[in-house]
């Protein structure tokens, strides 16, 4: 415990957050990850230990740097401190103070020095058409850079929808052949944190998990951490009761819209988008700040094939046919009855009495008739 004390007091200085706030954050992350309470302490210790800081190589492709911008604005505890002190950010085009050959050299050195140990974060889509000439950094294509960096990465995180599945530039007609990191890095495990921009909490939680346990959290078939993308927005949405009761906003500004009714008919993609927006909202602003919270239908920004691909006001394909107990099956009935043991015995007894009495009667009749003769 004494050791912990010194570790934490150093941490307080380093991160500029109180120990209490920091532990609270760790508990929150552990809880959203579905981890036991002990995990929060493990995370806090892992973060507090400067030796554990993993080196990070951060690449930018076709994008608006929205994910980084979102990350910079996360707070409580001031997460930009956390992210910068939690990891050893060796290369990041947007945040690096240096520029040009200097930073490129640093990147190469860092990658060589930490072979097999560094974390690769990809932000932005990777154009592959015409050998990837549509996005170049320091004279090299993003395609080559990604392959090069991925080669010896300990883990790869695709941060944002562009990196996860191509994002806006991959929408039809996709002139540059933009793809997400998982499509480019076939055969490698890529954790995706889609969203436009993605929720920084989903990124930090995932990185914290990696720092603490040395491995990545459980992911689904699209590489998304299950703790963050396990459920449809529709399933956690606080407008859901309106959907269930058939109360819909029909137009922006109509009575239903003003009353906070369900936005499904305005094209809300919540029923086909997996994300945790309704429970986490966005960047701790509070007051229900996330698209559906402020009266705009979900755009499906994080969902491949939905955001940037479906018309904004078209109806979504509702995916809530699970869990299965939500709907009665065709053959389910009210008040269906099985055969009670007592009832079966009574019915059997009735048949038995009739047959038995008939047999006995027949015997007696035979006796009587032979007497009469």
């Amino acid at each position: 415990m004494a050791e912990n004390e010194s570790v934490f007091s150093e941490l307080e200085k380093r991160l500029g957050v109180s120990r209490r706030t920091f532990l609270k954050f760790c508990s929150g992350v552990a809880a959203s990850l579905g981890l036991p309470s002990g995990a929060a302490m493990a995370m806090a210790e892992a973060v507090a230990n400067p030796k554990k800081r993993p080196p990070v190589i951060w690449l930018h492709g076709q994008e608006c740097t929205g994910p980084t911008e979102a990350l910079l604005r996360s707070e409580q505890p001031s997460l930009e401190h956390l992210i910068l002190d939690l990891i050893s950010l060796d290369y990041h085009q947007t945040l690096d103070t240096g520029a040009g050959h200097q930073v490129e050299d640093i990147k190469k050195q860092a990658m060589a020095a930490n072979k097999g140990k560094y974390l690769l974060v990809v932000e932005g889509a990777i154009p592959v058409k015409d050998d990837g000439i549509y996005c170049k950094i320091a004279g090299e294509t993003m395609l080559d850079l990604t392959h090069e960096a991925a080669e010896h990465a300990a883990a790869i995180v695709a941060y944002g929808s562009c990196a996860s599945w191509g994002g806006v530039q991959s929408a039809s007609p996709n002139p540059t052949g933009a793809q997400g990191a998982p499509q480019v890095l076939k055969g490698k495990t890529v954790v995706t944190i889609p969203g436009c921009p993605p929720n920084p909490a989903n990124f930090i939680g995932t990185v914290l998990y990696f720092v603490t346990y040395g491995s990545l959290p459980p992911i689904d078939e699209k590489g998304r951490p299950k703790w963050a993308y396990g459920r449809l927005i529709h399933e956690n949405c606080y407008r859901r009761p309106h959907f269930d009761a058939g109360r819909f906003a029909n137009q922006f500004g109509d009575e239903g819209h003003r009353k906070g009714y369900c936005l499904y008919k305005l094209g809300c993609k919540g029923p086909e988008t997996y994300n945790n927006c309704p429970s986490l909202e966005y960047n701790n602003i509070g007051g229900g700040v996330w698209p559906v919270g402020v009266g705009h239908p979900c755009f499906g920004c994080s969902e491949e094939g939905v955001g940037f691909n479906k018309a904004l006001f078209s109806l979504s394909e509702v995916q809530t046919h699970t869990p299965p107990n939500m709907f009665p099956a065709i053959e389910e009935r009210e008040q269906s009855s099985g055969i009670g043991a007592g009832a079966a015995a009574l019915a059997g007894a009735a048949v038995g009495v009739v047959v038995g009495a008939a047999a006995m009667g027949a015997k007696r009749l035979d006796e009587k008739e032979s007497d009469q003769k």
Partner: protein
Amino acid sequence: MSQHQALGGRILTKPFLFLTAIFLVGVYFMAQRFTSGMGEVSNLNGGYAWGIWVVYDVVVATAFACGGYALAFAVYVFNKGQYHPLVRPAVLASLLGYALGGFGAFFDMGRFWQFYEIFLPGNWNFNSVMLEVGLCVATYIIILTLEFAPALLERLGMKGLLKALNKVLFLFIALGVLLPTMHQSSLGSLLIAMGHKVHPLWQTLQLQPLLALLSALIMGFSIVVFEASTSVVGFGKKSESHLLSGLGKITVGLLVGFLLVRFATLILQGKFGLIFSSGFASFMFLLETALFVVPLLILLSPAKRERGSQLLIAAVAMLLAGTLYRFDAFLITFSPGPGFSYFPSAPEIMITFGVVAFELMAYLVMVKLLPVLHSEQHA
């Protein structure tokens, strides 16, 4: 003056007390039905709206109560006067059977407190088979009461009234033949509108009324044999096998007729193959058919027909056959749709048992107090 006399003797015998016990259990559950609703005591549900209360208490029990009808047909229409001694007990059994069938219909009635709505002509829907059944059964109960009234009037010594009644009795007897012909066939017609829910082996559509009527007559004659046998065994009456064998002979014709219509229909409707390919329904069909065929074989043999025991076995087989025919069509192979199931609950069965027990008790009391059974001077 009368050839009938009261049996006399103790009423509170052991069997009677046993029946009382069953009856009281039935009354207990019936009280529940009339305080908490049908759902409390029955397993009736959305698919099986008709359970044993309709199928046994009304459809089967009134067929059991066709003894009076069958004998009236034989004695008064075909002028077989020799069966006359059997008429009065048969009419009593019919009266009790129908009265309790009517009562069964009442406690099965979901809105029993406005049962009278069916008797208001303004409500009548002439397309409804149920209307015919309801009105016709109600009328027949009155007719049966009048047909049985002479026994009561004799007992009370009301000779004037008796004479007056006897003068117009022929009209009631004619009605007593017509009405059961109507509603027993209609009980079969009820199945037509159920369409696909009735198993194809039992859904004979236009022939439903004929099959129901034939089987009701078969059951009617069978119940007469059954009652006569019971009075021989139970009340120590002399065996009347010579008389009953004649009834057996009539029944042969009905059995052959029933089976011919049954199978001809299946062949003509192209359902013959279903007899063997319908799984459980096939089994029930074959069991039911066997119960019709076995008595036919017994009754075709003149030697067996003379033996009371064989007659009784044949009669019981035919009663079971007719019962099964109705149960199969209305309940056992009846299929309202996927997922529905029904088996009566214990209280539901006990209510029916209670009704049957009451019927038997009433019969025992009446034959002991009223001149019902035939006296034996010329038997």
